[in-house]
C-alpha cells in the first residue's frame, strides 16, 4: 500500500467490555452526605422495592476514562478526515457551538419553568425560526421535530390535516424512486399509500409520468431537491404546477438544502411544506447517529395545523408559548424539540452570516463538481446531468472484475478515508454516492481522488486486495450475516 498517502498504521489499545472490568467494591461515584434524615426504603416502597441491580458494572473513574478513550480511538470522525457520505452532509462541527450550548442557564433550563425566566431560551427559538424562514423563503415553522424523518412525519400530517379540513385527506403520496427510505416509511405512518414515481434519463422527476399519475387521490409529492443524485429538479415549476393544479401539495425533503442556502429558496419555487436537517445543513454534530433536529417550514395556509405549542410575542413584548390552537395536528414530541441543537444551529448561522452561508453553499457545490471531474471516466457516471452538492457514480466498470461498491468502500478505509454512501440511491445499481461538503480542502479532495483512482487500478491489477479490504483496521470485515442470524444483543456473564 505504498501509494497510500493519507494514512498509516499505529499501535492501538485493546479494550474489553466494561462488564469484564467490573468487580465488587470498585466505584467511580460518591454522593454528598445526606442533609435530611435517612429513610427506610422497605417501609416507603414495600412490594415495589428492588432487590439488586444485577450485573451493572462496578469500576473506578480512571477505568471509565480509559475505557471510553480507548473505544473512541477505534472510530473514524470528521475531526480526523473527510467523510464523503452522500446525503449525510458530514461537515465541520464548530466548537463554539458546543461551548454556548453548555452555558448554565441554557443547559439547566427546565422545560416547564415559568416563561418569565425562560426569555433567553425563547429568544433563541424565535431568532432561529426567523433565520430559517428567511433562508427557506417559507412563512411559518415548527422546531419540534427531533430529526429529518420526524419532520417528514410532521409535514405530511400538516398536509393531511389541511386536506382533511378541505373535506378529503386523499389516499396516496407520490415518491420518486430515488427518494430516501424515510419518505415512504413516513407516508405509511401518516396513513397514506405510497406510489412510486420513476425518474427520467436525466435523473429527474419524469414530468409526463407525474402528470399522468397525478390525480385527486394524491395528497402530495415528496420531493428531494436537489435529489439524491445531487441533481436539481430543473422543471420544479412544472412539477409544482401539476400538483397544485390537481389540489395536491408539494413537500420538499430539505436534507440537501446545503446545496441551496443563499442561492435559491424553496418557498420561491412552489414548495408548500418542507423539513430541514439542522444536523446536516446547519452543522450540529452527528454524534454517532444523533441527535438531530428536523424543523418543518410551511406556507401560511398550513400554519393553523402546526404542532403545539407555537412561539408567540405577547402584548408586553415578552415571548411565550401558545397552546390554544384548535386545528393543530397535536404534539409530535414532548416539550419543544431538541433545543440543544437549535442553539448550535443558530450559533452556526451567526458565525456565517449571509455571506458565509452563501460561500458555504458555493464551496459545497464546487467540491462535489471537483470530485466528479476527478473521477469521471475512472468510475461510471450513470447520470451526466449537472452536479450540485453530491455526485453518484456506479461500480459498473469495477463490477466486471467482481468488485462491487461495498468492496471499493471498504478499500477506501485503508486509504485513510471514510467510505462514501454505499448502494444508495436505489435507482443506481452499485451506487457510490459522494458528498464532500464545503469542509474539505483542495488538498483533502486531491487525496481522495488519488485514492479512488488508485483503487480503480487495484481492481484491474489486484482485485483481491480490494475484495479482502480493509487490511489496516483493528478488526477485518465483520460477519454481518451471522450477527443477524443468531442475534447477540447484550452481554451475558459466562456461566
Amino acid at each position, binding site marked *: 500500500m505504498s501509494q497510500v498517502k493519507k494514512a498509516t498504521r499505529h499501535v492501538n489499545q485493546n479494550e474489553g467490555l466494561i462488564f469484564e472490568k*467490573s468487580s465488587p467494591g470498585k466505584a*467511580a*461515584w460518591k454522593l*454528598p452526605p445526606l442533609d435530611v*434524615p435517612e*429513610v427506610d426504603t422497605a417501609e416507603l416502597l414495600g412490594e*415495589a422495592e428492588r432487590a439488586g441491580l444485577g450485573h451493572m*458494572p462496578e469500576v473506578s473513574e480512571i477505568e*471509565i*476514562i480509559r475505557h471510553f*478513550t480507548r473505544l*473512541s480511538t*477505534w*472510530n473514524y470522525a470528521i*475531526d480526523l478526515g473527510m467523510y464523503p457520505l452522500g446525503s449525510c452532509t458530514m461537515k465541520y462541527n464548530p466548537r463554539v457551538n458546543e*461551548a454556548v450550548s453548555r452555558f448554565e442557564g441554557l443547559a*439547566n433550563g*427546565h*422545560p416547564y419553568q415559568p416563561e*418569565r*425566566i425562560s*426569555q433567553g431560551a425563547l*429568544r433563541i427559538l424565535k431568532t432561529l425560526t426567523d*433565520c430559517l424562514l428567511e433562508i427557506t423563503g417559507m412563512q411559518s415553522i415548527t422546531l419540534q421535530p427531533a*430529526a429529518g424523518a*420526524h419532520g417528514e412525519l410532521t409535514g405530511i*400530517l400538516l398536509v393531511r390535516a389541511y386536506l382533511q379540513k378541505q373535506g378529503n385527506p386523499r389516499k396516496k403520496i407520490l415518491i420518486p424512486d430515488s427518494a430516501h*427510505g*424515510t419518505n*415512504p*416509511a*413516513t407516508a405509511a*405512518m401518516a396513513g397514506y399509500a*405510497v406510489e412510486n414515481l420513476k425518474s427520467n434519463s436525466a435523473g429527474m422527476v419524469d414530468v409526463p409520468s407525474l402528470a399522468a399519475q397525478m390525480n385527486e387521490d394524491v395528497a402530495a409529492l415528496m420531493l428531494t431537491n436537489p435529489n439524491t443524485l445531487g441533481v436539481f429538479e430543473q422543471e*420544479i*415549476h412544472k412539477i409544482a404546477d401539476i400538483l397544485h393544479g390537481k389540489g395536491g401539495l408539494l413537500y420538499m425533503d430539505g436534507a440537501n438544502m446545503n446545496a441551496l*442556502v443563499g*442561492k*435559491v*429558496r424553496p418557498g420561491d419555487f412552489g414548495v408548500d411544506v418542507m423539513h430541514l436537517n439542522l444536523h446536516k445543513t446547519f452543522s450540529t*454534530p*452527528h454524534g*454517532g447517529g444523533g441527535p438531530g433536529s428536523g424543523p418543518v417550514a410551511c406556507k401560511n395556509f398550513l400554519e393553523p395545523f402546526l404542532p403545539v405549542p407555537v412561539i408567540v410575542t405577547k402584548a408586553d413584548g415578552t415571548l411565550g408559548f401558545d397552546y390554544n390552537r384548535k386545528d393543530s395536528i*397535536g404534539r409530535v*414530541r414532548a*416539550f*419543544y424539540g431538541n433545543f*440543544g441543537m437549535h442553539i448550535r444551529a443558530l450559533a452556526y448561522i451567526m*458565525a*456565517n452570516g449571509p455571506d458565509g*452561508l452563501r460561500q*458555504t453553499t458555493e464551496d459545497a457545490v464546487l467540491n462535489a463538481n471537483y470530485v466528479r471531474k476527478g473521477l469521471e471516466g475512472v468510475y461510471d457516471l450513470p447520470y451526466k446531468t449537472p452536479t450540485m452538492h453530491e455526485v453518484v457514480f456506479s461500480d459498473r466498470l469495477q463490477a466486471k472484475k467482481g468488485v462491487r461498491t461495498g468492496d471499493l468502500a471498504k478499500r477506501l478505509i485503508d486509504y485513510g478515508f471514510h467510505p462514501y454512501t*454505499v448502494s444508495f440511491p436505489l435507482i443506481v445499481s452499485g451506487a457510490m454516492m459522494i458528498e464532500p461538503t464545503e469542509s474539505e*480542502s483542495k488538498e483533502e479532495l486531491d487525496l481522495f481522488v488519488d485514492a479512488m483512482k488508485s483503487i480503480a487500478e487495484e481492481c484491474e491489477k489486484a482485485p483481491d486486495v480490494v475484495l479482502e479490504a480493509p487490511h489496516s483496521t483493528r*478488526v*477485518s470485515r465483520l460477519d*454481518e450475516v451471522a450477527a*443477524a442470524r443468531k*442475534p447477540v*444483543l447484550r452481554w451475558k456473564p459466562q456461566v
Partner: protein
Amino acid sequence: MRYLPKSPADREAMLRTLGARSIDDLFAPIPAEYRLNRELRLPRQMSEPEILEWFQRCSRENGKGLPSFLGAGAYHHYRPVVIDTIISRGEFLTAYTPYQAEISQGTLQSIFEFQTMICELTGMEVANASMYDGSTATAEAAMMAMRVSGRRRVVIARSVHPEYREVLATYGQHQDMPLTTVGFGDDGRVKAAELEKTLGDDCACIVVQSPNFLGTIEDIPALADLARSKGALLVVAISEAVSLGIVKPPAEADIVAMEAQSFGVPLGFGGPYAGVIATREKYVRQMPGRLVGETRDKHGKRGYVLTLATREQHIRREKATSNICTNQALIALMANVFMTVYGREGLKELAVQNLAKTAYARQHFGRHGRVLFAGGPRFNEFVLQTAEDPYVINSRLLEENIVGGFPLKKFYPELGNAALWCCTETSTRASMDAVAAALARAQTAGNRRPEPEPEVVR
C-alpha cells in the same frame, strides 16, 4: 469564512479545472427566475466572542442556576464531569451512524454496553439505542404492540405523562388506532376495575407509566396479569430512569418505553433527550430503531455491527417498523457513561437519596397542604394540594429565587390547587425549608385550612 478551508487561489484553481468561468456557472441548473439575487437578510457574520456574549445573555435570562422543584418528565440530577469529557471527544461527537463497522467499533461497542445495561435495569431481554425521547418511544411502543398483537385498540392510563399521551394521539390518529383512557384512583394508581372493564380482545396493549405522572409507582405485576388475561401486551413507560435504582423493574412488561434523560442528560429546556425501547427477545423483529449485535471478523476476533436492519426504513421503506433514521446516539452515550459511573451500588444509593429528600419535603410541605395519593408508593415526586393557587405560590417563591412545583391545573383541573413537587439528590434541605416556610405563609393567606395529611411519612 473561518470554517471554510479554501483560499481564493484554491477556488480559482478548482474552477479552472472545471472549466467554469465563475461559481455561478455551477448554479446554472437552477432556473434563473428562482435564483436569489440578493444576500439573505440575516444577522451579519459574527465573531466568536460576540456569539459567546449573545448566548451568555440568553443564559442569564433563563433562570440561570435557580433551585427548582420541577420534575414532571424532566429531572435535575447531578451530571458527573467525565460525561462531557468523554462525549466531547471528536471521535464520538463528530462520527456518523456506525454503518462502517471496521472504523466504528468505539460507537458500536459502547451501544452494545448501553443495550446490556438497559436490559439489566429494566428486566427486559433486548433494548435499542435510541428513540427521539420518552414520548415518541411510548408512541412507537404502542404501534409495535399493534404489530405484535395484530390488534388495534390502545388503552392508556390517564396518569401517563400528558404530553406522552398527546404524542401517542398524534402518531395514532391515522393508524386506525382507537384510544381508550383510564383514570386513576385515590392511591394515584390506574383504576384496575375500570381498566378490566374496558379491556377486550380488540386491545393491542395497555400503556401505563411507572412511576406515573403523579409520582405513584404502578402495580406492574398485577397489570401484566390483567393484560395477559386479555391477550394484550403491557407497555410500561418510564420517565424518571433514576427510579430504577430502587424501584422494582417492570420485568413483567412486554415493552418498556423509557426516557433516559435522568441518566446524566442536561435538562436543556426539554431536549435533546434519549428514548429507549426494551422488550422481549421474541418481539425483537418488530422493534423500531437501531440494534447492535456481537459478531466476529474473519480472523475470529470479536466485534460489533448494526444488525436486524431489515426492520428499518433504508431497507424496508414503507414496510419498515418505523421511519426513524437519525436517533439520539450521543445522548445515549451520556446515559451510558452515567450508568457506568454510578453502576451497581451507586444507582441504588442515588435513588435512596432521592427517596429521602422527597420524604423530607413531603413531610414538611405536607404540613401546609394536603398530599394527594398518599396511599401508593412513590419515588421522587408527590402531589400537594394547597389553599392558594400554586401559580400564586410559585410567583412568590420566584421572588425568593426558588422555582416551585409544577401546577397540575393545566392537565388535571379536577385536582384544583394541586402541584407536582419533585426532589432529587440535588435538592438541599435549606431550599426545602425555604419552600416549607413560604407554603406556611401561603396557607395562612389561603381562604380555607386543608385537612392535615392523614399519615405522616418518616
